């Protein structure tokens, strides 16, 4: 690292050297986050097909393998799918707005990847350790809806436009409930920095995680997350039985795949945020020897994997919501619950500490 810094100093001079050095370093770090993420997305599609297949007593993809190794049967499927998508032609409809039509997938995936900049993977592993990390993530995820809106409008197709209107209304309404649920988390941790939020959950065991004192908020956050990513049972945006495929009906080839990359990247993001904010991030469940030997990054991965499994489980289990029921759940159930909980939490936090100390089981409020 020091040698690289010196090299940049000699090559670009003392004025520009440090700037180019930090630029190169950050670019490499971004690659180190984005490449495993995209690989994770590819294998999440494989996991989804396999897990749902097992739940429905099927086999799932079991043909494509690497170098003919029989016990890897099926594991080559995501790679084959990616190659297939890249080979296909991207068809731009005749009367479509060409510039916006191509811009839409880019606008969908860019915020989904940008939000990862502030995610802490372990106490030291974070690209941008900014103070307003939680706010930044909310801002970035709220940008994702533009890709969907532009895609539906630029396609110049009625089905795409109907899908767009459904998605935009759904995402904007669930963003509110999601934001309010996260306000509870930042009230508990008294910080917007994601690393500090995890550190606020330290204390020996999983009882200290915000999952326990904020359990209803965890449910609200996770269900809103499922609705935000347009996953089953809230997948009316692409309800194939109702509006063919929703906003991306006119897309083909890689442009179509980019929408799915963004959807799965958003799923992983919601799972990661739920793990960080409610399940203690990189902290082990119990602070005793066999658990503390495992590195924090592995714990975070395990928690993310569990949350993602829940996403797939929901998809295999629940029937699709009707549209007015989705709206009712967001506006009339979740937002009142979160508002009441915020006031309640504020009230509890304002109680005198001598009173809070009277409860022996109270581990969270001091």
């Amino acid at each position, binding site marked *: 690292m020091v040698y690289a810094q010196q090299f940049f100093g000699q090559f670009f001079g003392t004025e520009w050297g440090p700037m180019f050095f930090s630029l190169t370093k950050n670019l490499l770090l971004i690659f180190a986050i984005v490449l495993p993420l995209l690989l994770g997305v590819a294998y999440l599609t494989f996991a989804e097909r396999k897990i749902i297949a097992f739940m429905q007593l099927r086999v799932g993809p079991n043909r494509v393998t690497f170098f003919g190794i029989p016990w890897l049967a099926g594991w080559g499927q995501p790679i084959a799918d990616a190659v297939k998508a890249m080979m296909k032609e991207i068809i731009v409809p005749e009367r479509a707005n060409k510039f916006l039509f191509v811009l839409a997938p880019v606008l969908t995936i860019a915020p989904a990847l940008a939000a990862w900049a502030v995610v802490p993977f372990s106490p030291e592993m974070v690209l941008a350790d900014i103070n307003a990390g939680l706010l930044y993530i909310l801002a970035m995820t*709220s940008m994702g809806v*533009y890709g969907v809106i532009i895609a539906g*409008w630029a396609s110049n197709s009625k089905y795409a436009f109907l899908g767009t209107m459904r998605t935009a209304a759904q995402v904007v309404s669930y963003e509110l409930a999601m934001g309010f649920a996260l306000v509870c988390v930042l009230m508990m941790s008294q910080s917007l920095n994601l690393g500090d939020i995890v550190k606020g959950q330290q204390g020996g065991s999983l009882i200290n995680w915000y999952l326990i004192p904020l359990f209803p908020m965890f449910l609200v956050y996770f269900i809103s997350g499922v609705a935000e990513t347009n996953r089953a049972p809230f997948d009316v945006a692409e309800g194939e039985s109702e509006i063919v495929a929703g906003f991306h009906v006119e897309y083909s080839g890689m442009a179509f795949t980019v929408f799915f990359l963004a959807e799965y990247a958003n799923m992983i993001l919601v799972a990661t945020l739920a793990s960080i904010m409610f399940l203690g991030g990189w902290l082990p469940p119990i602070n005793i020897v066999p658990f503390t030997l495992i590195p924090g990054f592995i714990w975070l991965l395990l928690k993310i994997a569990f949350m993602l499994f829940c996403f797939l489980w929901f998809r295999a289990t629940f029937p699709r919501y009707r549209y007015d029921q989705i709206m009712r759940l967001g506006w009339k159930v979740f937002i009142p619950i979160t508002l009441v909980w915020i006031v309640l939490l504020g009230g509890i936090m304002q109680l005198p500490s001598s009173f809070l100390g009277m409860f022996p089981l109270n581990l969270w409020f001091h």
Partner: protein
Amino acid sequence: MSFPEISFYFFSTILVLSALGVITSRNPVHAALLLVLAFFTSAGLWLLLGAEFLAITLVLVYVGAVMVLFLFVVMMLDINLDQLREGFWKWFPFGALLALVMAVEVAMVLINKGFGIGQMPVPSPHAPDYSNTKELGRLIYTEYVYAFELAAVILLVAMVAAIALTLRHRSGSKFLDPAQQVAVKRKDRIRIVSMPSEKKE
């Protein structure tokens, strides 16, 4: 030129161009999207000033929510440009007057000695652990709490008024109450009848 200066000119150029695009674009959807770009770049400018809370809130509130609804409405409108142009000369004097007032106001700030940049104290650099959000929250909820609450109440009144003005109940609509639907039990809907199986004659 240092890196912040380069970023400043980069953001400013995009901001000015996209703001010009908003008023010159013939397609209302393009205009709305350019406005989104203008908001986003001005958030970048605020980040350069060290106002990270305001910058991110601008993106969260205006880009993430307000403009989405705006775009939503604009996309569904069928706007005829010729119809819009009809009243142009009739309203031109009024618009020109507004523009003049705004230009005079800006000139007062820029030219007047009392407002000039030399009159402003140089802001002191903050400590590395300085949190913009925390400071702003402290000020809003202590020193400026009445003004803040007043603004909130005015917004709430406006919201309630907007809903009250547009709310109308249509008679004869086949509305189903989801709460009742969700609460339905099996015995409300089906009756299980025990019947002897028929015998073959």
